[in-house]
Each structure stands twice: as structure tokens, then as C-alpha cells.
């Protein structure tokens, strides 16, 4: 009956019109995302092969010379090492400390847990660049509150120039970074803990398992897949610290906090004669590194899926 109601030819124009609408709906994304994400990714490769001194100048093709120069620059390797140090130090502290705290805050017996969560999450929503500037003052060697407190407690009578000396600047930056993004990892863990059904705990309690045994034999194994995802999200985030570092230390003192993004920024925007091709080459290398991390991420997720399937 339906066939009789709509003649066979009617389906085709409708499908064609649907296709038209589909692409109409995709147009804003194709245009905006294409122009401001896909094109820049591809463009970086092209620009990295040129000698190009500023957005007003015209680039000239010079082959892989930029790459040769970047790879030979000790400053590039130093910034690469600083980026890695940032990641290797910040991520484990962040992931493990938030896990412990999340377990405590997840217990319904914990008083005021919502309030604590709010307080710990607060730095996450604040503007990183502004926090970076405020921290310059908080860590000021003469009148900053941190040094005033240290002096009051008799811990450092002369004050510590946390951000002004090479030996402490990176550590301080990492500390502020962990403080700033602590809440986000905490919320990841709390979400992960919510996926453990309360009946499981109930059953464990009835079987006479104590709090520590429940944690060890029930909670931890169930959290394992989340550990992989949360660690990788944290790694991804720790590679992008431009806002904080530029506003807090500007990469100094003596380049001791110049992570890769600041290195790229310095050559492209802060130099008297910008070298956009050179900076692009550094950016491409950084991008390839991120890709590698992403690839490891996919492999790790697949491995845990398989492990979960086997269990």
C-alpha cells in the first residue's frame, strides 16, 4: 500500500535533498574547522620548509634546512627536555595524589565532601594566564605571601626567589601547574569511582572484607582501565603549559623554564626578526611528538580493552 501512495520516483529527490541538507549542516564545521585547524596542521609542514621573516614578508623555499638547524640547536633540545621533565614530574604526582584523595572524598561517611571538592576544583575554572600573573606576586621574594609565611615560620629568613633563579623556577612552575589542574584529575577519578556499583561494596562488606582489602581487591582492579585513560589525559594536558609558563616566568630565568611552546613563540612572535619557517619546523617536530603520544594512547587503550575482555 505504501508503494502505491508514494511513487517509486519520489524517493530519489528526497534522498538528493537530504544530501544537500547534510552538507549544508556540515558547512560551518567544514569551513571553520577546515580553515582554523586542518589547514594550519597541513600548512605547518609547508611553512617549515621555507625561510620566512614575518607575516608581511613572502616565504622562500629552502628545503629541510630549518629541520637541520632546529635539530642542531641545543636550545631546542633543552626546551624539549624541559617539556618532558614537566610531564614526568607533574603527571605521576597529579594522578596518584588525586586518586588517594578521590577515594577519601568518595566515601559517603566523609563530612563536607562536596565543599572540599568545590574548593579543590576552584583553581581549574580560573584563567591560567591570570593565575600565572598573580603567582608572580605570590612568590615574590620580598613581599609575596609565600616568603612572608616562610619568614614568619623561621624557615627561610632571607626569603627564596622561587621564580627568579634557575634552580627553583621549573619546580615552582610544576608545583603551580599541579595545583592549578589538580581538581580536574580529582573529578576524573571521582567519576571513575562512581562507576563501581554500590552492591559490589555491599557484598564485600557482607563477606567481612575490611576497608583496606576492599580497596585492594575490589576498587583498584576496577579502576585499572581508568588509570590508563586518566594518565594519558594528564600527559596530553601537561604538554600544553604555554599560558602558565609565559605569564609566570616568560620562559626564564636564563631559559630555565622555556618549554617547547614558549620556544616556538619566541622565534615566531617575540624575536626582533621573526623566523616563522624555523618556528614551524620546531612546531612540526613537537606535533609529531604529540602524535607519537597519541598513538601510544590508542595502543594502551586497546591493550586494556583486550585485558578487560580476557578477564
Amino acid at each position, binding site marked *: 500500500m505504501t508503494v502505491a501512495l508514494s511513487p517509486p520516483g519520489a524517493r530519489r529527490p528526497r534522498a538528493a535533498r537530504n544530501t544537500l541538507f547534510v*552538507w549544508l549542516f556540515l558547512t560551518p*564545521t567544514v569551513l571553520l574547522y577546515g580553515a582554523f585547524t586542518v589547514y594550519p596542521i597541513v600548512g605547518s609542514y609547508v611553512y617549515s620548509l621555507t625561510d620566512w621573516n614575518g607575516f608581511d614578508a613572502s616565504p622562500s623555499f629552502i628545503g629541510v634546512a630549518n629541520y637541520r638547524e632546529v635539530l642542531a640547536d641545543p636550545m631546542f633540545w633543552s626546551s624539549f627536555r624541559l617539556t618532558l621533565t614537566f610531564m614526568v614530574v607533574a603527571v605521576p604526582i597529579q594522578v596518584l595524589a588525586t586518586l588517594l584523595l578521590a577515594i577519601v572524598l568518595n566515601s559517603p561517611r566523609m563530612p563536607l565532601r562536596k565543599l572540599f571538592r568545590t574548593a579543590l576544583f576552584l583553581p581549574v575554572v580560573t584563567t591560567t594566564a591570570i593565575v600565572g600573573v598573580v603567582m608572580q606576586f605570590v612568590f615574590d621574594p620580598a613581599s609575596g605571601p609565600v616568603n612572608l609565611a616562610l619568614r614568619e615560620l623561621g624557615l627561610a629568613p632571607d626569603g627564596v626567589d622561587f621564580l627568579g633563579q634557575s634552580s627553583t623556577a621549573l619546580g615552582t612552575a610544576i608545583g603551580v601547574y599541579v595545583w592549578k589542574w589538580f581538581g580536574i584529575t580529582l573529578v576524573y577519578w571521582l567519576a571513575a569511582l562512581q562507576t563501581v556499583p554500590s552492591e559490589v561494596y555491599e557484598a564485600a562488606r557482607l563477606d567481612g572484607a575490611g576497608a583496606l582489602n576492599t580497596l585492594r581487591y575490589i576498587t583498584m582492579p576496577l579502576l585499572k582501565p581508568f588509570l590508563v585513560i586518566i594518565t594519558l589525559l594528564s600527559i596530553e594536558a601537561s604538554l600544553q603549559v604555554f599560558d602558565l609558563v*609565559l605569564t609566570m616566568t616568560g620562559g626564564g630565568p636564563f631559559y630555565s623554564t622555556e618549554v*617547547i611552546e614558549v620556544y616556538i613563540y619566541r622565534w615566531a612572535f617575540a624575536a626582533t626578526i621573526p623566523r616563522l619557517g624555523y618556528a614551524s619546523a620546531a612546531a612540526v617536530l613537537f606535533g609529531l611528538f604529540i602524535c607519537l603520544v597519541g598513538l601510544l594512547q590508542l595502543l594502551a587503550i586497546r591493550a586494556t580493552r583486550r585485558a578487560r575482555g580476557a578477564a
Partner: protein
Amino acid sequence: MTRTTWRGTLRRLPWWLAAAALAIGCLIWIYPFLWMVAASLKTSAEVFTKGLDLLPADPAWENYERAWGEAQFGKYLLNTVIVTVATVVVVVVRCAMAGYVIARHDFRGRRIVMGVLVATLFVPAGYTIIPLVDLAQRLGMLNSLTGMILAMSGAAHVAAILLYVGYFRGIPKELTESALIDGAGFTTVFFRIMLPLAKPVTATVTVLTFLSTWNAFFLPLVFTFSRPDLRTVSVGMLAFVGENTTDWSGMAAAATISLLPVVALFIALQRYFVEGIAGAVKS
């Protein structure tokens, strides 16, 4: 009876001790913000002589006048509001539309579109900034709020599309089929049925986009190099301390003005913030 309550209290004691320790910890945790608000109400002399005291002798509101007018934070705040609101609207509309067609329609090129999106899920800003600025300049959009808005709504936001895809996929076919039989067109189905149904996702996307746009720094920084009047609060802040290194209370007032809207919104809509961020792990 009294014995059981006693025992209950005793059993609770470790939790209350932990809570007390955490309360002190949390106070230290948010101390930088408390210090900032306190400093914004102190006179310049008080900031240096009474650095640790949280209460100023007499609130010095003129710091806010100075930050708002002289340091132009009133203007910067307006710029930030304009850029954030416009970006959120563009992102929600474009991501919902893209997510809808990817989830509900089989068209040629769908796998390619999806593949490109997933492949570019994590792209750091430092990586794309040079070609992006170059393109913006050639289109004549550098040094304008419109350009900043378009660039910010075009950069990333893949996660938002994927959230919509996931949500729209889960909506039963019957809902749209009956509407189609009633003669509803493509756009009607989307705007009248699908988009209203996706309110939870829209809330999450709005909150997350608001957060990332309000707090953006790299892009607004390079887009306003030659137009200081178009700065957002985050860029204005860096410029302010670059020019006035000794005006601590002015700096604190400017920072408080800049952070207050986002903190207020967070406290009012905390549920959406937390759920939006937690969603990243669950999916």
C-alpha cells in the same frame, strides 16, 4: 542507647579528623585567591607591610576604579564577554549540526569527515598558531574581534561534536519517523525535535566552551598585538603587570575583576562543570 551513640561517634571520629585536616588543606589551597581579593582592597602601603593579613583596615575601592578605568579592564571585560558569548553560540550551533548529520544520516564522505575529526582530536595551540595567524592576516581578520571569534570557534572542539554524535545516535528512530510522516522537513526535525532533546549535551558543551574561551590566552594574545583596545582580560593582565610592576593592589583588583565572572558561574552551575569534565573519562 547511649553506648551505641558513643560507639557511633567514636567510629566517626577518624572521618572528622580527616575532615579537619582537609579543611585546613583546602584553606591553604584557595589562599592565593583570598590573598588576591584581600590585596585588591588594600592600599599600596598595606600590601607590602601587612602582606599576610586578609582583612584590610579600610577597604580601598579606588583600586577597582583604577583597574576598571585607567587600566581599561572594563573594556577588556566587555571584549572577553563578546568573544566568549559569540564563540559559545557558534560552537554549539556548528557542533550540534555536524554531530546530528554524522549520527543520523548516511552520506558519502561520512567516514572521511569522522576520520579527520578523530585524527585531530588533540592538537596543541602552539602547533597551529603560525599558519592560523597567517591565514587570518590574509583574510584581513587579524586585529579584529570577529576574526578572533571565528578562529576560536574553528579551532578544535572535536570533543563537542563527538558528544553530540553519541547523544543523537541514542535517540530512537520512531521519534523522527512519525514527524517525517507528518511532513516535517530536515530542518524542522533538527530544530524542533533533536536539538531540544539534546539539552544535556548542549549544557555540557556550553559550559566547557565558555570555560576554554574565557580562559583562552595564546590566540587572543597574537590576535591583538597591534590593537591593545581589543585585548581580552587574560592578555590585558600580562600587559598591565608589564607596565606597572609596582602597583600590586591595582593588579589584584584587575585579576579579581577578570576571575569573578567565571568563578561565580562555576559556583552557580557547578553540576554542569563537574559532569561535563567527568564525561570525558566515562566515554
